[in-house]
């Protein structure tokens, strides 16, 4: 049985990675998870310079999920390259660096800096809803996405994954924009924008008022979008949104995802990715699938 998948020319040993921002750069989780067993590690978003992020409270629990408004706090690409990439290089897994920015120049600065680094792929976060900038709507407009993708592709030395926001009228338009710009893959979904009000304190649960909803509660929307995008583009899809067990991961794969990311579930059980990988293997055995790619998108 063949658990490996090929995403835009990069061979992962299995289809499971972690969702950006839920796993740091892997170091903290390495006490709980054997990183060698992951198909890839996707890092927290990194920008050209350090970002301080939002005021606290930055997270709130909601029924069946959570909301976050971390605000993309990150140490900047310099420290990241010095510390986090060497750490991950010690493991036999693929490295996907998630990139964020307020403006095209900021993304490009990071992508350029990554060109000489020993990483395997990069994931461009054009969708984080927590940064209060005019740039917010960027990932919500197909033309802008196409343009940014094309600019990035011009200088990127590694395959580029465009990470899509679900807060749009038609996700297929955005995915097609990414594909037209030359993206090697797309990943989805980022968080759904939500709000929680504390009725006793009569205020917002998050300092930022709104936050990104994630966890099991977003799965039906995420599966739908992965399915729609799979019908709309030819590039591979990394599916995510509420994956908490192997069954969830398989749902995304049958809907059209070539690989999956586990996010919020890591907070509930830090070793959940290991269970997801084992569970996919067990399902394949039981259902007579020889290779992960034989499952991708078979429900049409």
């Amino acid at each position, binding site marked *: 049985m063949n658990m490996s998948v090929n995403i835009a020319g990069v061979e992962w040993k299995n289809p499971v990675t972690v969702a950006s921002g839920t796993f*740091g750069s892997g170091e*903290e989780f390495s006490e709980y998870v054997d990183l060698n067993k992951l198909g890839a590690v996707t890092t927290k978003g990194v920008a050209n310079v350090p970002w*301080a992020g939002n005021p*606290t409270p*930055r997270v709130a629990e909601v029924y069946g999920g959570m909301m976050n408004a971390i605000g993309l706090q990150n140490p900047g690409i310099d420290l990241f390259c010095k510390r986090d990439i060497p750490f991950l290089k010690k493991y036999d897994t693929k490295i996907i660096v998630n990139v964020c920015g307020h403006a095209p120049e900021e993304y490009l600065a990071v992508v350029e800096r990554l060109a000489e680094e020993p990483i395997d792929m990069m994931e461009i976060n054009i969708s984080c809803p927590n940064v209060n900038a005019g740039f917010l709507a960027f990932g919500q407009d197909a033309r802008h996405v196409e343009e940014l993708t094309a600019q990035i592709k011009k200088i990127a030395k590694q395959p580029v994954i465009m990470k899509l926001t679900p807060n749009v009228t038609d996700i297929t338009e955005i995915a097609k924009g990414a594909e037209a710009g030359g993206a090697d893959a797309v990943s989805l979904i980022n968080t759904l924008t939500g709000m929680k009000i504390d009725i006793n304190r009569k205020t917002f649960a998050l300092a930022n008022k709104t936050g990104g909803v994630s966890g099991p509660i977003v799965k039906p929307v995420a599966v739908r979008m992965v399915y729609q995008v799979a019908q709309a583009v030819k590039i591979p899809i990394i599916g995510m949104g509420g994956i908490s067990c192997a069954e969830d991961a398989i749902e995304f794969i049958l809907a059209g995802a070539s690989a999956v990311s586990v996010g919020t579930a890591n*907070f509930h059980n*830090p070793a959940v990715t290991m269970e997801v990988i084992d569970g996919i293997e067990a399902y394949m055995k039981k259902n007579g699938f020889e290779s992960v790619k034989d499952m991708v998108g078979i429900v049409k």
Partner: protein
Amino acid sequence: MSEKKRENCTVVSQECIAAGIYSLWIQTEKIAADAKPGQFVSMYTKDKTKLLPRPISICEIDKEQGRLHLVYRVTGENTGTEEFSRLQPGDTLPVIGPLGNGFPVEKAEGKRVFLMGGGIGVPPILELAKEMNCAEKQIVVGYRDCHTFLREEFEAAGTLYISTEDGSVGTKGNVMDAIREKKLQADMIYACGPTPMLRAIKQYAEENNIECYISLEERMACGIGACLACVCKSREKDAHSNVNNKRICKDGPVFLSTEVEI
């Protein structure tokens, strides 16, 4: 590598020790062996709609029997802590830990020390008091009213001073009022409690040039330093974050008072 895990701990005993305050002993495989005072554990509910951990400080550590004592407050109806309060001996409870840095207990050696706890910040002071080896162990704990808890345990561990907001026991007021009333002196402070109390202690310590460690609280998602949910402002640019943010779950919860802004 990957030597830590979410343990399914067994409940040894549980008791309500004051209105809404529960005392829980759990049997752990490994957590108790590694634990230090001031560290905490993440407790998980069985309610499938509540996914985030509940961070609870370690109140006592029984290394011999591999047990932890946790004392917590039920914060309301339909909360995770309410679910915990229904746990019976033999029930299991998913736990991660020990987490965070803990109090630097060794720094107290030879010093006159204040061990200060307020409200639900009182419990972690107990293990600290028990492990501390110092010249003068002055335990100053504040409660809202006569519903005090862990008093006998504190009396056994050092000299106990109590404050209550309504004056029903000890000094009327907060822990700072107790210090002033009793004219207590220290070269070293360890404290845990609500932010206004910690703010007052921090100011007092800095004005009097006393080394002071405070244990902070913030909403958490991972509890292990990965998600950057639980930050506080740090005075210097933090080496990990590269900005002026420290992670309470990983770099804390205990900080030198001069390191952080609260």
